[in-house]
């Protein structure tokens, strides 16, 4: 090869060393460029959010334009209801398909499910919203919390499935074999031994899915629709925190902008906490 010729030429060496340090410097610049907007967004949201945050924000209903005060209590409760409904749909399905993929991975069906979840995780959330609109809203003839929860549930499935599968794969094979050798049936082994061992990992996955669903806006626009009053029955339009932020953010009113920043701060803070928790739990367990 010509490698020897290239490496031994001193003039080349200078140039190569220069390119080397230049590229490494550029990589460093890239890292700074990526971290910068993150810190900027985080600090900016915190600053604008905290100043607008008070007890009213968590306890009051939104007030009409022009009136001082008001909060997003209904939106926070609404988000809670939506996430709860979404979780009811998304978590069991996600965990069960995760189990199927991990424990029965040799079958053709498991491969197909894996591919489908991968593709599903890439489907734009607004498309899932349209789907929920077609299935639930049209059938019920009204925007409702159920439709919103349905959309969020579908969005949760891929995350939960993926994490469940990964966590189950980390469970040592000898544990399964020991249980099977004691005469325990396959299903009981999966539930009582494998699932239990992996439970903390799966819980973090579920938390991650919930955090993501909490921030989703697009699919809620025409399923949950939003509502500026107290509403807890699930067949009616319901408010949600990200929706409220969206409406307030694109409005021209200074007062609403401050409220929206407070909402954004609450959301970002939640996401941060969940991610931190997940990081902490998984490091201890699987470091």
């Amino acid at each position, binding site marked *: 090869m010509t490698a020897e010729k290239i490496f031994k030429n001193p003039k080349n060496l200078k140039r190569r060393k220069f390119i080397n340090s230049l590229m490494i410097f550029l990589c460093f610049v890239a*890292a700074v460029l*990526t971290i910068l907007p993150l810190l900027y967004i985080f600090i900016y949201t915190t600053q604008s959010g905290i100043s607008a945050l008070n007890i009213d924000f968590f306890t009051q209903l939104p007030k009409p334009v022009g009136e001082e005060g008001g909060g997003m209590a209904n939106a926070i409760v609404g988000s809670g209801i939506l996430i709860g409904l979404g979780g009811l749909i998304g978590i069991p399905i996600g965990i069960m398909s995760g189990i199927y993929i991990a424990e029965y991975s040799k079958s053709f069906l498991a491969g197909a499910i894996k591919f489908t979840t*991968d593709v599903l995780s*890439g489907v734009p959330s607004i498309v899932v919203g*349209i789907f929920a609109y077609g299935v639930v809203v049209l059938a019920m003839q009204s925007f409702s919390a159920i439709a919103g929860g349905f959309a969020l549930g579908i969005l949760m499935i891929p995350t939960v499935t993926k994490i469940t599968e990964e966590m189950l794969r980390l469970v040592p094979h000898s544990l399964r074999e020991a249980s099977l050798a004691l005469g325990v049936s396959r299903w009981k082994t999966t539930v009582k031994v494998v699932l239990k061992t992996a439970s903390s990992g799966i819980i973090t996955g579920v938390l991650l899915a919930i955090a993501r669903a909490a921030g989703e*806006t697009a699919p809620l626009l025409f399923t949950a629709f939003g509502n500026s009053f107290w509403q807890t029955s699930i067949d009616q339009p319901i408010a949600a925190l990200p929706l409220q932020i969206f409406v307030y953010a694109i409005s021209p009113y200074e007062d609403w902008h401050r409220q929206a920043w407070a909402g954004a701060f609450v959301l970002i803070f939640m996401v941060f906490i969940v991610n931190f928790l997940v990081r902490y739990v998984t490091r201890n367990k699987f470091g």
Partner: protein
Amino acid sequence: MIYEMYVDSSASIEKFGFGFIFSSHWEPVKEEFGALTFIYGTIVSSFMALLMSLPISIGVAIFLSELVHKSVRTSLSFLVEILAAIPSIIYGFWGIFVLAPFMRTTIQPFLQSVFGFLPFFQGTMYGTGLLTASIILAIMITPIITAITRDVLKAIPVAQKEAAYALGATRWEGIKMALLNARSGILGGAVLGLGRAIGETMAVTMVIGNKAQIMASFFEPAYTMASVIANEFAEASNEMQISALIEVGLILFGVTFIVNSMARLLIYSVTRNSQ
């Protein structure tokens, strides 16, 4: 899911046929619908975002996997992960109030004074528009591409790099070789990021300006497939409009489905051997 959407959009599909994709008229009042403007906005904004984000993502991935100490690596990776987890509505919000004014007062005048002879950089500077949307998208897809590039780089055997060093290669030359070997995986990551950018709704809706037009200038407001659905769906005035919007959704679904399948296959082709 595909079936459900096909049924719901059948009215529009029957009426407009293939012309739907190539027509740029979108006039709800006259019940005339064509999706070309939205397809154009989606493609241009996504590809510009990818162009901006790809070099940076690869740089970060190299930085994380090859150059820094382990303790720095864990905290930096954590920060990048958080970047991926911030809800898109917050990016959009930040885009309106921080990025758009900054674009209007600083970046856009600068671009216009330097590259003003090109049609891309002419026109009025609103702050919002195609370019701003692309920048926001680029920030949002960087963590995804970074994560995948890092995984793919990890899958390249260390022995290869060590062999290169042993022959006297500089650090960058060793990394370059690893990058070459990982190229199809990195391409997969890029395509995955593209898919995310195509489907991104809220952040784009908030900063792109929402105007159904095809303009050469990147400063002009535009419209994407996802944002037209977000804006018009809930207040659509007639059956035909809803049907047309669902058809836009169907196109969006089809495009992202193809893009994502391609990405998965590419990534799989690299990581398969290491598992």
